[in-house]
């Protein structure tokens, strides 16, 4: 028995040993090659070869591969550390075997570098910038390794691209999959984050204590939260698309916490648990957003002076909830569960749309009552508490027609099976009614 157990352990250990170590013996050490390259020159790594990190770049050189050279790294240091300004990393593939989420595969400590087309596989972090300004990080792919198909806990993963105290960097066109936070900004001002894609991670884009960040045209799918903006002033969140952040009980499309005087516009949040979650935030402008098929479209807590204009709320199980929030202005939004009345034909309803905060209040007082979400008896209970509607969330002139049309096009091709099923059901009913109802009663 003991022998068996020991054998089993030995097998498990052998299996869990990082496999590339076997080939690491033949890997070419990267550091001497870098040291031999003169500033301003390019070090070309050969396709199909494996190079061994860790390596530190102390001169302004370019490192690229003429195909896809692999850099492997297993120690406690980053695969590549950039200490010099103006370094270019291009078209590499980095396989990092580190497991400490605080350790990145690429660490940038300098300015004006360019990291482009790099593919990183790691269970630790991807690209970390520390006190590094004016860098460009474009079209990289960072993939958190999965432990043999099992999902690794979020807390054990590193961030994809992580900025601390780094200003004016550009993060564009990167793909971030199965990491902790796709892009994480802390105390990093004027960062431009555009056209990235983050999936299956904790937060897609996580911005904290950073001035004037711009989050433009990014996408997120199946993360716990798509875009999370915290303690920020003057952010621009525009044209992003967050879909299916719905698995986790804390999921939301876009979360704004302690955000002030920011612009959140032309975003599309679809199929999330909560589309827009806004807490302790003031004087933001939320316009032209599409909030579609979320369980809760908009949830607002302790937020004042925000403007919501020309947005669409459609197919959400609960359109909006709000408590302890006053002086927010809603005007000209489209609510698909509202039948308005437009007497003067200006496209806006003369009746206002009002939202009852009863359920949010109820569940805030006692969370297990969340079980009554959309219960058929709930409207009945809400009706009885309709006394004071003065502090409700209210859209004074709701839009009569949805402002965005493309979402309405549902494919028709998949409907034929339903027609067939309907015909079968209908025919079966008629036969049964005729056979057992009509004929037996008339014999």
């Amino acid at each position, binding site marked *: 028995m003991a022998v068996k157990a020991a054998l089993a352990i030995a097998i498990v250990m052998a299996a869990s040993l990082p496999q590339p170590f076997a080939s690491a013996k033949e890997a070419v050490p990267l550091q001497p090659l870098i040291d031999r390259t003169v500033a301003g020159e390019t070090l070309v790594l050969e396709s199909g070869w494996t190079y061994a990190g860790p390596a530190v770049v102390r001169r302004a050189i370019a490192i690229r591969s003429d195909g896809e050279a692999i850099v492997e790294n297993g120690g406690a240091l980053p695969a590549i550390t950039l200490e010099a300004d103006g370094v270019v990393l291009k078209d590499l593939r980095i396989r990092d075997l580190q497991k400490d989420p605080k350790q990145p595969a690429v660490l940038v400590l300098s300015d004006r570098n360019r990291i482009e087309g790099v593919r990183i596989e790691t269970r630790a972090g991807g690209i970390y910038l520390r006190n590094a300004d004016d860098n460009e990080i474009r079209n990289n792919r960072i993939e958190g390794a999965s432990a043999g198909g099992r999902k690794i806990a979020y807390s054990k993963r590193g961030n994809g691209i992580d900025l601390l105290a780094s200003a004016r960097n550009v993060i564009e066109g990167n793909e971030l999959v199965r990491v902790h936070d796709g892009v994480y900004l802390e105390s990093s001002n004027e960062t431009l984050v555009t056209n990235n894609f983050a999936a299956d991670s904790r937060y897609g884009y996580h911005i904290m204590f950073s001035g004037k960040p711009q989050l433009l045209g990014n996408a997120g799918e199946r993360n716990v939260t798509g875009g999370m903006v915290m303690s920020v002033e003057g952010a621009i969140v525009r044209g992003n698309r967050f879909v299916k952040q719905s698995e986790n009980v804390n999921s939301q499309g876009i979360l704004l916490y302690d955000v002030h005087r920011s612009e959140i516009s032309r975003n599309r949040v679809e199929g999330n648990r909560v589309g827009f979650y806004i807490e302790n935030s003031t004087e933001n402008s939320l316009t032209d957003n599409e909030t579609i098929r979320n369980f809760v479209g908009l949830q607002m807590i302790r937020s004042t002076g925000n403007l919501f204009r020309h947005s669409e709320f459609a197919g959400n199980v609960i359109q909006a909830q709000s408590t302890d929030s006053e002086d927010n202005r809603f005007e000209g939004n489209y609510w*698909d569960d509202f039948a308005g009345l437009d007497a003067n034909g200006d496209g806006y309803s003369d009746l206002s749309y009002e939202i009852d905060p009863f359920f949010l209040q109820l569940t805030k007082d006692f969370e297990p*009552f969340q079980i009554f979400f959309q219960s058929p008896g709930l409207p009945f*209970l809400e009706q009885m508490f309709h006394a004071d509607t003065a502090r409700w969330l209210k859209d004074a002139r709701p839009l009569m027609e949805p402002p965005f049309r493309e979402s309405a096009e549902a494919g028709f091709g998949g409907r034929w099976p339903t027609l067939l099923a309907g015909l079968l*059901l209908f025919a079966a*009913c008629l036969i049964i009614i005729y056979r*057992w109802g009509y004929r037996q009663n008339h014999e």
Partner: protein
Amino acid sequence: MRHLAAIASREIKLGFRNPWAYSFMALFALFSLALLLIQSQAGLDGYTSTTGTMMNLILYLLPLMTMLLGSFALTSEKEEGGWRLLSSFSLRTHSYIWGKYFGLAAVLLVIVAFGFGLSGIAGVFFGQGFALAGYGRLLLFSALIVLLFLGLSVLMGSICRNRWQALTYGVGVWFFLILGWPTILIAGLGFLPYVWIKPALVALIFVNPAELNRLFFVVKMGGGSVLGPEYYRWVEWIERPAGSLIFAIVCLAWIVAYVESAAWLWERGRRRE
């Protein structure tokens, strides 16, 4: 078994002779069509406002319909002497009640299928058709609501002496389980110590087939996270394939318990006569 089948087929025959069945059928068909026409672009894929509304409207209508048809079918036998005649034969109460249950289930399922069939066809012509998966899920939801509430109604039918009493009970139970449920629970549970509230809430869900069904389908449609962190383990558990199996067993146990107690009550009444 032969008796049971005979009673069931007699019940189907009676059921389709009953004008109530047709008026309910018309009402349900009208409802399904109306829902189809007012449904927004949200569609039936997953948990959306449309699926939520559909489920609620089904919950308003079907349980009441089932309880009235079911309990009337039993009390009318008492009132009109049908049972007196039948009980002079060597017919076991058990076979009789279960026969009634299956016969009524067939009639009600035909009513539901009629409404769904009609809206499935009409949907294609009005250009607002459903996807098959969502359609099938709602059909299954309706069928389960009918089967569960029929168990309740059979018990009600054996308790009540006449149709008037059955009507009163039916509407009362419907109000309690569907409309008043959150109100009554929120008010009532307030008296319990804080730590007991959630366990009591969960236990009570198993008492109310409407809530049990609704929550199961919400979770199956991927809406489980909306219930919040308090129900994380429940949701995870239901999402697994074994969750469906256990749900089916719970439903079956529910039906058997109610129909069996109806049979027991009915048998007791028979002995006393």
